[in-house]
């Protein structure tokens, strides 16, 4: 067997082997690897590289070494899934850096962190004043995570609206001009509905690059032709406007009429419309 052929066979089988091993190791992203896992990865790659080139190493020796190096992390991660103490030992503990707004100098020293490095890490999190921090912790993988003081935390929807209406994930129903039936069915819709909506906006299915339906049944589309302007869906806004108009009409009728009975009826219904408006307004806005 010529040398180049042996190298080729070795390389191809090692590539396939490494591919399978990486699949077994799982889908933790590279940045989330612990230092140990990182080193294991490099070593496995190095062994594989040497094995494919250096014909003086016998295949059995190389494979034994690779298997040990790559299966050891699998084993440790299996055990650490079950055992908290083992996990702490293998993956390390997090270290408190700031607690109750006070820097813990002892812990900084233990992790060999200078104040400058701490400040730099805080700035990465958009924190420029240490006084704004309630709590900061150094994770085992070297990330610094920061909890800001309550008054410095960014505003969320929940702060402004106590009970915001929830939104489910939108479904993509047209891709590259092709209708996707499965997501449509998930929303309880069908092709007929989709066609009706597209006709309303005056576009043909073939011209649609992407179309999505949100959890309130509103269809938003993107066309191949970027020069054409597509209006935003208006149904919810129009409905809200109609409710407001009818409510105002009833108040007007109540003012105009002389008959007492009719006045009472219009006023009662104006109040009902007001209640209805308040009920649905959060769902109809945006």
């Amino acid at each position: 067997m010529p040398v180049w052929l042996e190298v080729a066979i070795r390389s191809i089988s090692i590539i396939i082997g490494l591919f399978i091993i990486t699949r077994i190791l799982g889908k933790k992203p590279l940045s989330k690897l612990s230092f140990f896992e990182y080193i294991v990865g490099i070593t496995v790659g190095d062994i594989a590289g040497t094995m494919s080139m250096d014909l003086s190493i016998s295949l059995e020796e190389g494979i034994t070494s690779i298997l040990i190096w790559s299966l050891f992390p699998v084993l440790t991660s299996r055990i650490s899934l079950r055992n908290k103490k083992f996990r702490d030992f293998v993956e390390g503990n997090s270290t408190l850096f700031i607690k109750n707004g006070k820097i813990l100098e002892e812990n900084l020293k233990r992790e060999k962190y200078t104040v400058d490095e701490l400040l730099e890490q805080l700035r990465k999190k958009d924190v420029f004043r240490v006084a704004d921090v309630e709590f900061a912790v150094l994770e085992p993988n070297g990330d610094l995570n920061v909890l800001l003081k309550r008054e410095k935390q960014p505003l969320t929807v929940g702060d402004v609206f106590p009970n915001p209406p929830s939104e489910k994930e939108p479904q993509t129903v047209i891709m590259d001009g092709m209708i996707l039936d499965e997501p449509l069915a998930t929303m309880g819709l069908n092709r007929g509905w989709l066609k009706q909506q597209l006709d309303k906006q005056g576009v043909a299915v073939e011209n649609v690059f992407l179309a999505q339906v949100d959890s309130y049944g509103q269809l938003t589309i993107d066309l191949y032709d970027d020069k054409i302007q597509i209006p935003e869906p208006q149904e919810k806004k129009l409905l809200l406007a109609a409710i407001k108009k009818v409510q105002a009409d009833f108040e007007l009728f109540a003012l105009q009429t002389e008959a007492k009975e009719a006045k009472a009826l219009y006023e009662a219904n104006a109040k009902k419309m007001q209640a209805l408006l308040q009920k649905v307004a959060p769902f109809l806005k945006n």
Partner: protein
Amino acid sequence: MTVVSQVKQSLASLKSIHAGLQELALISQDEQAQRTFHEAMMMTEEIIADIKKRIGKLEWEEPQYHGK
């Protein structure tokens, strides 16, 4: 525009609101949204019944506007 036709216009708007709410109640994915739209729809039904009664009375009082 006479009073009757104004009220009738409001009734038409109400019916369209009713249909819109019904559609949203059916199509919404979130359970709370479904319930809210459904309750709102029931409220419009009550109001529609009230207004229909009122229109009947108006037409009876002023038969010259009947059907307009």
